[in-house]
């Protein structure tokens, strides 16, 4: 009798295990993978690009105030407004896919280096320097963050409000309006009420989305995280470090480079977690659902990379000479993160995210 019960239990257990795997658990996972995609525009891209536009507006206002009254504290306020806007932009570089790359909003805002010779010719000319004149210039090196940075800080970071020329003030005002317009276009491009790029994520795998499957959308987001990780570690940090040349550091005028680099990786973290000012569902939840140790490993590598910047205390232009070990440590942390994204997260997503 006892044996029969054991035998019967065994059969029942086997039968239960053989029951086809289309259980509620799998449907929940499918729902989760879809929700993470639709949360991305709602919690990350749209609010963040909205904040970027708002800070661009504030920057324009701060420069108008500076032009009206060129005092030191107005100059410092304009510099801070530049930094505040820059911070949001750098974080948004965690997801450089979609209109920001397809419609070239990135190079419109963030081309580097500045073209000093052309700028001097432009300022010495009788060009009216209105916003439409700025937009008609033949190269993007004369538009965006960096010409504005150059005028606000000067080559050595010691620009004085009193020495701003009328031409520079006119040019600077138009630069800020141009930046604001670009940020408006970028913000509109994702917004459901305008360009609605968001629907490509919400409807991934359905007709009308550029992503033929949900997996494609996940891989596009992941490739963007890998991209910024590589760009910071192997590009923005590596090139001046290897050449020991401070002239090729980006954002050289404001001394803002390390803040920028760290913000890039914080942006990556926000993408992984699906958050900006509020926390939506992110890729982390998809990972944790099936492989908690992978999620833990990714989070700790991201945190390690972000925190490693704390050790670089000098401006990057000096750190490449005097804090090379600390720079190397950060690069190693970034390389470890990139490796995990490439060789652990990507295969996980290919394996698990199905339509």
């Amino acid at each position, binding site marked *: 009798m006892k044996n029969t019960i054991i035998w019967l239990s065994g059969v029942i257990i086997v039968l239960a295990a053989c029951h086809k795997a289309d259980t509620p658990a799998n449907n929940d996972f499918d729902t989760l993978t879809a929700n993470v995609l639709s949360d991305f525009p709602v919690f990350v891209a749209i609010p963040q690009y909205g904040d970027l536009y708002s800070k661009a507006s504030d920057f324009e206002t701060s420069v108008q105030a500076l032009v009206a009254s060129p005092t030191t504290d107005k100059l410092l306020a304009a510099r801070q407004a530049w930094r505040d806007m820059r911070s949001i932009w750098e974080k948004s570089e965690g997801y450089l*896919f979609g*209109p920001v*790359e*397809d*419609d*070239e909003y990135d*190079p*419109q805002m963030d*081309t*580097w*280096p*500045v*073209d*000093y*010779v*052309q700028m001097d*010719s*432009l300022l010495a*000319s009788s*060009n009216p320097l209105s916003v439409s004149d700025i937009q008609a*210039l*033949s*190269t*993007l*090196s*004369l538009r965006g963050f960096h010409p504005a940075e150059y005028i606000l800080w000067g080559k050595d970071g010691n620009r004085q409000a009193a020495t701003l020329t009328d031409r520079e003030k006119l040019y600077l005002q138009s630069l800020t309006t141009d930046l604001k317009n670009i940020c408006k276009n970028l913000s509109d491009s994702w917004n459901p009420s305008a360009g609605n790029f968001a629907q490509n994520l919400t409807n991934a795998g359905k007709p009308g989305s*550029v992503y033929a499957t949900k997996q*494609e959308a996940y*891989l*596009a987001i992941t*490739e963007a995280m890998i*991209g910024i990780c590589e760009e910071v570690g*192997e*590009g923005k940090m*590596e*090139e001046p470090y290897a050449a020991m040349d401070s*002239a*090729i550091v980006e954002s050289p005028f404001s001394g803002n480079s390390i803040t920028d680099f760290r913000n890039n990786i914080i942006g990556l973290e926000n993408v992984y977690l699906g958050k900006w000012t509020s926390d939506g569902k992110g890729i982390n939840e998809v990972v944790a659902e099936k492989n908690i140790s992978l999620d833990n490993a990714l989070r700790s590598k991201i945190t390690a990379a972000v925190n490693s910047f704390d050790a670089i205390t000098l401006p990057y232009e000096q750190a490449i000479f005097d804090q090379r070990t600390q720079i190397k440590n950060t690069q190693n942390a970034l390389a470890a993160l990139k490796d995990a994204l490439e060789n652990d997260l990507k295969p996980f997503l290919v394996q698990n995210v199905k339509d």
Partner: protein
Amino acid sequence: MWVAVLVCAPGVFMMCNKPGDFAEENFDPRLSGGAATAFDATSKSFSHMIEGMKAWDEHIHELGDGQFEQSFVTAPAPVNSGLGAIFNNVSCISCHHNDGKGTPTAGAVNSSLLIRISLPGQDEHGGPVAVPGFGLQLQDVSVFGKQPEARVNISYTESTFTFPDGVQVNLRKPDYALTNPYLPLPAGYMLSPRMAPPVFGLGLIEAIPESTILSFADENDADGDGISGRPNYVWNGYTQKMELGRFGLKANAPSLQIQVAGAYQQDMGITSYVFSNESSVGQGQGDGYADDPEIPDSIMNSVVFYVRTLAVPARRNVTDVAIMAGEKIFTQINCSGCHKPTLYTGVNTNLPTLSNQRIHPYTDLLLHDMGEGLADGRPDFTANGQEWRTMALWGIGLFPKTNGTAFYLHDGRARTLEEAILWHGGEAEKSREKFVQLTTTERNSLISFLKSL
């Protein structure tokens, strides 16, 4: 005698166990670039480094990658000095968006189209005749304060084509007009529009033996199939020799070095050890600065190495039934007559990933008369005014990803693959006709197949 038997015996056994060919169906159809294939179908699919390189070579690739994305500025400048003063765009990446094609406009900051120019006749090497004051390429952008050679105005003539099943396709034919030339233009000048092509897989293309390319040639159509591909022999200004051309839309560049150095000089106004004179020398728009060559040899070489070592994106959905049917149709209607599916690269001991690889570029690298509709009317060495080099089709399904919007053909006139095929004339006329006569299902299968490349 026993010794002879003992010696011969292994030979007998080996003959009995002769190794068969590796069966076709055992090859992985996703590996368009053989070992030099990257599995990525995102906007970054053209941007991956080939695997299996030594650490130093990877470093050079990354250096070249960084350089490819650098914006140049007017000389003198501490960084990236030497732009123009006349040019088409400021960086390689501006035209080769995500290492692929870009947008068919000219003269704007995101334009990917440039215009070649020449006068009738041939120079001492059989090549195009430069227009005095303009050269062989128009630079339609300039730095502030200088005047570009001319501006380019692009207009389109629209037409509609209706398939037998009633499906309509909108076609547009571009016309190029020059405005505001800085000098009067001589009569009879010829123009040829060139969209920036993708830059991946070039090391594999480079590694195809000349004998392979020449084996496809059939200049007099001896086999009577309507196709008469022929090679383009061009002058290499660096080696000072006539060589087989294989890069560029009319196969007018014989090597990656010439292609890259030529682009630096003509498209951006950057001089190097290969072409150390500004394109504007003798014209009024020089940057007036004695800084040539503007980039060091090592940088120039790193960019050549970069494009040599970019991987080919893997095919997608290869087991889809419609796509497999489309692949058969591709051969049945003889698209494969010029767009050759399978080639083998030669041996390269420095880069094993490119060496002796079975690849699927879908090109024979030969010139073909494509008919009046696509003709530019401008000869380029052996290529006449109706001939174009067969474009590689690998990666074509990813153009919408790498550029947001896809544009096909040498001038970007086609927005869909159907449009591109409908423009095929001349030697491709027979295949085009068969395409038009396909059933709806067959046509859709063929297009799906192309999108899987």
